[in-house]
């Protein structure tokens, strides 16, 4: 009996080890080429030089198309890329909310993905060796993209002097605005030009509340967010909704944002609004978004940051917000830090077996309008129609959910935004304005610095939890800042905020010295 048990355990262990080796020994084969079937015609012909295959993984918000439909788009792209750069592309659209996990899983599992992007986690991708160092091959394979993006922005995607990817080239400079009901403003004769900061908004809200007691003046942008963000803060690689050590002002000194007077001011303002019934009570837990709330007609305005000029923003939001007449007023100014630029960075996978081909294709997504529009909109006349002056719209009677292929909503995450066909109803001049904003917005003194959090992983998770617990209530005014902020700060200290700040300062100083 004992012997049997021993043999059994031995067998188990042997199996585990065997299994482990079997799984890794198998070379990184590609999946049975699903696209190979439909593009069978092309490879069958004689080709003088080998065509390299590149798998391009991009995030999509629309429905995932079937393999056959995808193959048609791939074929259209390949017709161009085969001649231009000797590459055949396999498109891999992945749902946005699972994008990072899917790419991570695929790469861990040894699947072929050559080009993918970061969603706010470039520093993690670099520190875990997920992306390739392209410093050496960028000049030969992607000089056009490099020139387009420019040294300044590319600095945001470097670490230790090495370049790791290209940031999505699109309007990044976001300006804080208040989006309000134009019809109510007109009815009450309010002059919105006097509103130049968040504090100025209060007066307007009170006026509206007095005139329409049943209406709640301020709607939340989404859960836990009233749009009250501070100006000119560099978040040093963290999300602006969970900052753990920031730069405020022009000094290279890392401070705790939550201990700053600016934060206290914002919380007090929110609390003030809450007490005066100027803001929705359950902003901290709502499951609705600003558009939904505005569409219901019970709210007057909301505060958020947009990249388009005022008039455009208002016009483009009207449809989503229930068709009401909307206006927009800028109350802040744009500020760019490293993470605003590198939030969406396109990288070549470190495990790629065709890095140069991958980089060449990536270059095309930044410079070739045909390819970009194929990826975004699909096939002309089947998935979209183009008007004479170059505006895109869906074919008669169809929309984003019924056409065979569309990835229209990825326009903000893919390659070069400015070479995509504009959708019908957008203002072309604003594109120029946005481009100019990109260049002229105030930038942080620490532009180009990314923080590697491996040394403080434990503190990071602990602090993240504390922030999740306290932040929403504070910035939505549902708790009293006077009592809560001290508790919050204490819990942060207990969770290790100090250690994170110290580590950031060390890395920042080293980076500054290295410049």
């Amino acid at each position, binding site marked *: 009996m004992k012997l049997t048990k021993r043999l059994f355990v031995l067998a*188990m262990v042997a*199996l*585990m*080890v*065997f*299994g*482990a080796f079997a*799984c*890794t020994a198998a070379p990184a084969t590609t999946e049975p080429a699903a696209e190979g079937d439909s593009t069978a015609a092309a490879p069958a012909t004689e080709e003088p030089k080998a065509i390299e295959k590149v798998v391009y993984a991009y995030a999509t918000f629309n429905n995932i198309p079937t393999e056959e439909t995808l193959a048609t788009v791939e074929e259209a792209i390949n017709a161009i890329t085969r001649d231009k750069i000797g590459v055949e592309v396999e498109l891999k659209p992945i749902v946005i909310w699972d994008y*990072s996990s899917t790419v*991570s899983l695929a*790469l*861990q599992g*040894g699947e072929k993905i050559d080009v993918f992007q970061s969603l706010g*986690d470039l520093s*993690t991708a670099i520190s*875990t*060796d*997920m992306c390739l160092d392209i410093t050496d091959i960028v000049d030969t394979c992607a000089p056009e993209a490099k020139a387009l993006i420019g040294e300044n922005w590319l600095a945001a995607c470097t670490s230790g002097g090495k370049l790791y990817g290209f940031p999505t080239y699109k309007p990044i400079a976001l300006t804080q605005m208040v989006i309000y009901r134009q019809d109510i403003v007109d009815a009450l004769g309010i002059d919105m030009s006097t509103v130049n900061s968040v504090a100025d908004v209060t007066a307007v809200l009170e006026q509206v509340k007095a005139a329409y007691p049943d209406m709640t003046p301020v709607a939340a942008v989404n*859960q*836990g967010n009233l749009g009250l963000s501070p100006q000119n803060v560099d978040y040093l690689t*963290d*999300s602006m909704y*969970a900052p753990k050590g920031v730069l405020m002002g022009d000094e290279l000194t890392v401070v705790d944002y939550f201990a700053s007077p600016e934060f206290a001011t914002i919380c007090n303002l929110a609390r003030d609004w809450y007490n005066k019934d100027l803001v*929705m*009570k*359950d902003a*901290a*837990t*709502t*499951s609705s978004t600003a558009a939904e709330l505005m569409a219901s007609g019970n709210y007057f305005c909301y505060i958020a940051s947009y990249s388009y000029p005022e008039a455009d923003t208002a016009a483009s939001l009207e449809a989503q917000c229930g068709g009401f007449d909307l206006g927009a007023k800028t109350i802040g100014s744009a500020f760019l830090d490293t993470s605003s630029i590198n939030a969406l960075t396109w990288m070549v*996978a*470190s*495990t790629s077996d065709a890095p140069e081909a991958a980089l060449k294709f990536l270059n095309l997504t930044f410079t070739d309008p045909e390819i970009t529009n194929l990826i975004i909109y699909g096939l002309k006349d089947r998935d979209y129609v183009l008007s004479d002056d170059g505006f895109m719209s869906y074919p008669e009677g169809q929309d984003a959910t019924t056409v065979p292929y569309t990835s229209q909503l990825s326009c903000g995450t893919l390659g070069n935004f400015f070479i995509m066909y504009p959708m019908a109803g957008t203002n072309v001049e604003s594109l120029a304005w946005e481009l100019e904003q990109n260049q002229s917005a105030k930038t942080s003194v620490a532009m180009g610095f990314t923080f590697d*959090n*491996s040394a403080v*992983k*434990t503190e*990071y*998770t*602990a602090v*993240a*939890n*504390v922030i*999740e*617990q*306290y*932040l*929403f*209530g504070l910035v939505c005014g*549902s*708790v009293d800042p006077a009592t809560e902020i001290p508790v919050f700060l204490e*819990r942060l200290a*207990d*969770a*290790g905020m100090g250690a994170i700040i110290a580590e950031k300062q060390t890395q920042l100083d080293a980076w500054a010295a290295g410049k």
Partner: protein
Amino acid sequence: MYLREREGYIPLRSRIRAKAPAPRKNLRPEGRLSMTKKKKKQQRASSAPLLLIAAPGILYLLINNYIPMFGVFLAFKDFNYRKGIFGSAWCGLDNFKFLFKTHDAWVMTRNTLLYNFAFIIIGTIAAIFVAVLMYELGQRSRVKFFQSIMLLPNLLSWVVIGFIVYAFLNADTGFINNTVLKALNIEPISWYSTTKPWPFILIVTFLWKYVGVNSIIYMASISGIDKGIFEAAQLDGATKMQQIFRITLPMLKPTIIILTLMSIGRIFYSDFGLFYQVPQNSGRLFEVTQTIDTYVYHGLMELKNIGMSAAAALYQSVVGFLLVLGANALVRKVDRENALF
């Protein structure tokens, strides 16, 4: 076959009076499977065909569960994509630190344990209660009707259930605040900011989703009880309640034990959807709604550290494993054949 002819028969009355069927020494208490040593020797020989029958299942578990266990190594590694699972550097117990170091770690552990205890105890009682009631309904159509209704909640995903709870509890337009409390003239309560009622809310939601499904297990077990015992009891004058408490419940003991043991093994796991979606991820409620799974999720959303998530999973497994070994050993001492192994 009459009761009286069965081996080791005990007169009916004493069976009813006894709190539970007395453990009979001559009859192996594993239900009614009993045998003598001689028979044992004869039947041991037939292991091979039995193994053959079990083979597909064994093979599947090997492939699906055992071989992939090498993934456990990730918990001890500092994962690097270029080097892969086997090339990445070992980092000892570093990845486990975040599970212990802070105040929150203690809170999440306490919550997970307490909720699971509550679920096991209350869930079992509720499921048995419903099962007994449904079984006694007799008429097939009624059973069909009630059972279909009870299964409906299980078909809804936690995201949807989160919306439903929100529909009842949200401060501005929730059903409770708007309709119920208004009618009773009570001030509206900000449910998502008050921690006190949430253990209750979460337990009720849990029961709502699972009592129908769980009661089915018990119904199947009850249906396996020999009808003859009930008839005899009835003949001897036992009331329905007596029959339930003296016959049905004790006969359910093996099932209860097995299910409880299995639940103990999962005691460090929590139903993520329940604790994340239903409280709408409201930070103010974390003290009572944070469990290990949600803590790991929050912590690793930003970090996306593969080693740390693997470490958390391993932590949950090991604790559950140790607890179940302990519980199983206990059960073996008291009631040997009902232990899991």
